[in-house]
């Protein structure tokens, strides 16, 4: 077990180093000089050179990388080329917002997918199961931003039950926070929930045909209790795989949905950074997203080992 954990940790560390190099390199070779952008087209060549020196952009790329990566390790994300303020606190604020949104969406997806998937699998030959299948198929086909616009139209504009956009920190006004969180979390979560439902369904269907489920019933469990006690944990392995991928998808999906609902998360910070040519902000946000995705994958790998003893190498 510990062998596996150490192995996965080593893989995580290696992935992080490679990812940081790639992120740095891609943004370094992009055309467009941050100093020139910051000063505008009318600036003198002299002023641009001075600013490049000030930003440290005149140094070799290797030194710049070491400076940036070393800062990341210390939690120092550098100072914005545009706003001249430190990037770290901004990213931390935005990460918190996006984190809440993504986790809330995942919760919505799970609350939808687990019961729906199980019902679809257990009743796969009956009308109720087929109807649920059809509904989830529609859900899979709808992009999150479209779901968001639909939700705003119905619940915010027509029914006026919920605010159409905005963000309030949970500490400031918990009720307002929940009201504003609901629609973006639903639009991200329902779509992912529809996808997840189909994986839960097929995982449960596979498990339903397993011999050990019949053994469990032969021992004196009803079909339902046999599924809960012996089936769910075995069905969890493929579902956890998909959950990991979906968390990554949600992080990226949040970029778009934050735009739709005017939520000040990492996504809007990233898009603002791109618009302002604030390369450092873009680089930091991308790196934070990459780290989050890699961490999720790392946790998924550990979860596999926790769920399925066959994946543990040594005892």
């Amino acid at each position, binding site marked *: 077990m510990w062998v596996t954990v150490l192995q996965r940790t080593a893989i995580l560390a290696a992935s992080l180093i490679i990812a940081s190099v790639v992120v740095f390199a891609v943004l370094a070779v992009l055309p467009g000089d941050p100093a020139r952008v910051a000063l505008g087209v009318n600036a003198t060549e002299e002023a641009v050179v001075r600013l490049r020196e000030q930003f440290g952009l005149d140094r070799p790329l290797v030194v710049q990388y070491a400076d940036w990566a070393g800062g990341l390790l210390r939690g120092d994300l550098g100072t914005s080329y545009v706003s001249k303020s430190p990037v770290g606190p901004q990213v931390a604020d935005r990460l918190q917002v996006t984190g809440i949104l993504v986790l809330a969406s995942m919760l919505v997806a799970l609350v939808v997918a687990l019961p729906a998937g199980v019902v679809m699998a257990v009743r796969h030959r009956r009308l109720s199961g087929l109807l649920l299948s059809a509904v989830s198929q529609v859900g899979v086909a709808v992009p999150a931003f479209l779901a968001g616009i639909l939700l705003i139209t119905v619940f915010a504009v027509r029914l006026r039950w919920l605010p159409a956009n905005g963000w309030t920190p949970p500490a400031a006004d918990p009720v307002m926070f929940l009201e504003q969180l609901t629609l973006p979390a639903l639009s991200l979560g329902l779509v992912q929930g529809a996808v997840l439902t189909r994986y839960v369904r097929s995982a449960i269907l596979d498990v339903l045909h397993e011999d050990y489920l019949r053994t469990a*019933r*032969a*021992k*004196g469990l009803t079909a339902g*209790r046999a599924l809960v006690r012996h089936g769910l*944990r075995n069905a969890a392995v493929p579902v956890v795989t998909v959950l990991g991928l979906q968390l990554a998808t949600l992080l990226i999906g949040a970029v778009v949905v934050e735009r739709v609902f005017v939520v000040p998360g990492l996504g809007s910070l990233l898009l603002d950074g791109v618009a302002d040519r604030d390369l450092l902000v873009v680089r930091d946000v991308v790196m934070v997203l990459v780290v989050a995705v890699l961490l999720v994958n790392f946790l998924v790998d550990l979860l596999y080992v926790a769920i399925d003893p066959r994946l543990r190498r040594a005892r």
Partner: protein
Amino acid sequence: MTAGATGTVLRVRDLAVGVRDTDLVLVDAFDIARGERVGLIGESGSGKSLTALAVMGLLDEGLQVSGSVRLAGVDHDLVGADDRRMARVRGRHVAMVFQEPMTALNPTMRVGDQVAETMLLHGSRGSRSAARSAAVDLLRQVHIPDPEQAARAYPHQLSGGQRQRVVIAIALANDPALLVCDEPTTALDVTVQAQVLDVLVSGAAARGAALLFITHDLAVVATVCQRVLVMYGGHVVEAGTVQDVFTRPRHPYTAGLLAASDLDAVDDRGRLRTIAGTVPAAGHFPDGCVFRNRCPNAQDDCAVAPPWTGPHQASGYACHHPVPAVAEVGRG
């Protein structure tokens, strides 16, 4: 019958298993006495496993069952009982050993917990710790080396033979009156088949449990069973003591099975004997006698279903043109 009604553990009457308008199993009657070991033989597709699953109440929900299956100690008919009531019967009054030990155990649960679970479900051990130590005892009884260690192991850490011993331990845990075994040694290496069989039979004998033993290995039936039922096309076509049926088969199908399992006997062309043709797909058996399209003795009157010939349901055959009673069959 070999035992009086009071000594009967299992009583099956007019058992029919079907899907839509196709009958897959039509068993008129058979009984199993307390502690009796009965073999159920026949080719794949003859309805042996369906019969066993019907007794267990574990048939796929798409199948229709009718008739009557009564079990000693259970005050309701097993046919038509809902899953909740059957769950209280399964694992306590009747238990089952399956064919495939590699997949019969939950891969994510420790072996000891899987054995203990069936005792906890039926309340035969008061506490979790009592059930755990009883599980270790059971693992010792089925001759698993180092049972304490095995109880903490996951199934993938045990061999196929050991896993089947675990399945047997689960089946024996609550001292059931009847043990249904569906090809329990078929998937095992020949080297461990005899040992596992021994554990199974002695474990059942120690508890006075009757055996319904499904197999297509006639040698196993000859060693394990006292009585045998021969199934073909969903029907019991012959029944009797192992001695009678194996030495003096009356139904041509039984005779064919025996001839086919005799690896010394060859036909005129020097090949091993077989039964002509193949088992038809479900629902494609001929009407009348189900065996008549493969039977060497078949005549026109076989289009009418043959009645049971014999003193009672435990001994006799269903055939219009049986093999002569004196013939020694299959000895070329």
